[in-house]
């Protein structure tokens, strides 16, 4: 379990935010990463990361770059994706306290509230308890809060009982910043998901 197929490449949305930190985290795990700024950059990737940054900025740039529709098509087709912080907001179906014109990709059946822990002075480090046992470091920066979780959403990590790491189908959402802590657990979840998706595709093609 865990080893990605050697040829897989993970795209990191590189419009604004902590994309280079995610590329470094992938590199540490021996996985190829690619900065995604234009639709052509989506060709040949097996998974996608939506990084932290400002969700309003990324939302504008998703439209101007022409990336919104091709990414929405991929994600609605079950493409493996990890969204951290602002990326979690972009994945969620309902956004509290966002801008009226803010739109997400609607793949995680959760409601998130922007900046619901407070401003930067309230940003914090705190352990995240894993449902499978153990804990990992959590760096929460002007973090979104998961307010509601739909019936098909799996809660993988909590802090003080609140969900902060969730998964639905092939989409993983994370309120904190694994790309800053150096802990590989969350990135491994995505890589495992890519492995499962590639295996499923291979099995399906064998049956044909």
């Amino acid at each position, binding site marked *: 379990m865990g080893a990605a197929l050697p040829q897989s490449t993970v795209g990191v949305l590189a419009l604004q935010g*902590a994309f280079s930190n995610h590329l470094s985290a992938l590199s540490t795990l021996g996985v190829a990463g690619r900065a995604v700024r234009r639709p052509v950059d989506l060709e040949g990737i097996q998974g996608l990361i939506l990084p932290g940054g*400002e969700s*309003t900025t990324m939302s504008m740039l998703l439209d101007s770059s022409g990336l919104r529709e091709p990414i929405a098509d991929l994600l609605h087709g079950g493409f493996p994706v990890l969204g951290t912080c602002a990326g979690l907001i972009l994945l969620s179906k309902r956004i509290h306290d966002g*801008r009226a014109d803010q739109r997400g990709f609607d793949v995680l059946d959760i409601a998130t509230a922007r900046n619901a822990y407070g401003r930067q002075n309230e*940003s*914090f*480090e*705190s352990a995240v308890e894993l449902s499978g046992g153990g804990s990992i470091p959590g760096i929460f920066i002007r973090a979104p809060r998961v307010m509601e979780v739909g019936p098909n959403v799996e809660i993988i990590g909590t802090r003080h009982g609140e969900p902060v790491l969730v998964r639905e189908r092939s989409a993983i959402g994370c309120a904190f*910043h694994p790309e800053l802590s150096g802990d590989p657990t969350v990135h491994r979840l995505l890589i495992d998901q890519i492995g499962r998706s590639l295996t499923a595709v291979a099995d399906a093609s064998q049956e044909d």
Partner: protein
Amino acid sequence: MNSDVTTGSTPIKRGLAEMLRGGVIMDVVTPDQARVAEDAGACAVMALERVPADIRRDGGVARMSDPEMIEGIQEAVTIPVMAKARIGHFVEAQILQSLGVDFIDESEVLTPADEAHHIDKLAFTTPFVCGATNLGEALRRISEGAAMIRSKGEAGTGNIVEAVRHLRSILGDIRRIGQADPAEIYDWAKQLQAPLPLVREIAETGRLPVPLFCAGGIATPADAALAMQLGAEAVFVGSGIFKSDDPAPRARAIVEATTHFSDPSILAKVSRSLGAPMTGIGMDAVTERYADRGW
């Protein structure tokens, strides 16, 4: 607060700076301007009473902004709000922290309050950004606790030449230190008047320990892309947006240029029909260089 929760730590402060990478931080003087900036895709705004071009024109002592004005901007937008304190004026910084601004800029654009000492930034929960003209200055600010460095450029001029000089100086020395042998690192620390452990860290990692942004003179999308291609990780635009003919489209074009900084076809597209940029001034006409403030 629960005892297992840490706020204001170095990873938390530097983390917010990491989140602003690839973005544009815009100077705004009213809530309306702040909304224009947010609509255009700014990743943060800098709340201040006068943009640097007006500070330069008006002269006199430039100080921290009125808290009421800063709060008005905090209420107007959801993106991070920064505000400026005078160099060494730790009480202005205490006030800004109590207002809950997301980043404090200890800024040479305001009139310095202390001619020898910068603020002890490690004593604060709120992260700080400081300007630098060279690597030694950047490392002294980082050792005092700055979570982000911006090359100073020359604010309020609309002239990119000083920003280019400062970026080339900082990044050129980082590259040269990467080539230095261990014995030469000591001499680098001495020449730069910078702490040896930070110089060693640069030799190992090839980058500053905090994000390096560019400020001071950006007026066009091409200016922003130039800063990014030289190695800046995000840009501040002060007077360049709201001193231009048509701020909203220019703001948006600079945001797009900062993201697509290495794609000339996109830069050509977003640079079209923006109206006149701020007029700007040549360096020989600048009587007071803000970049010389700070030590």
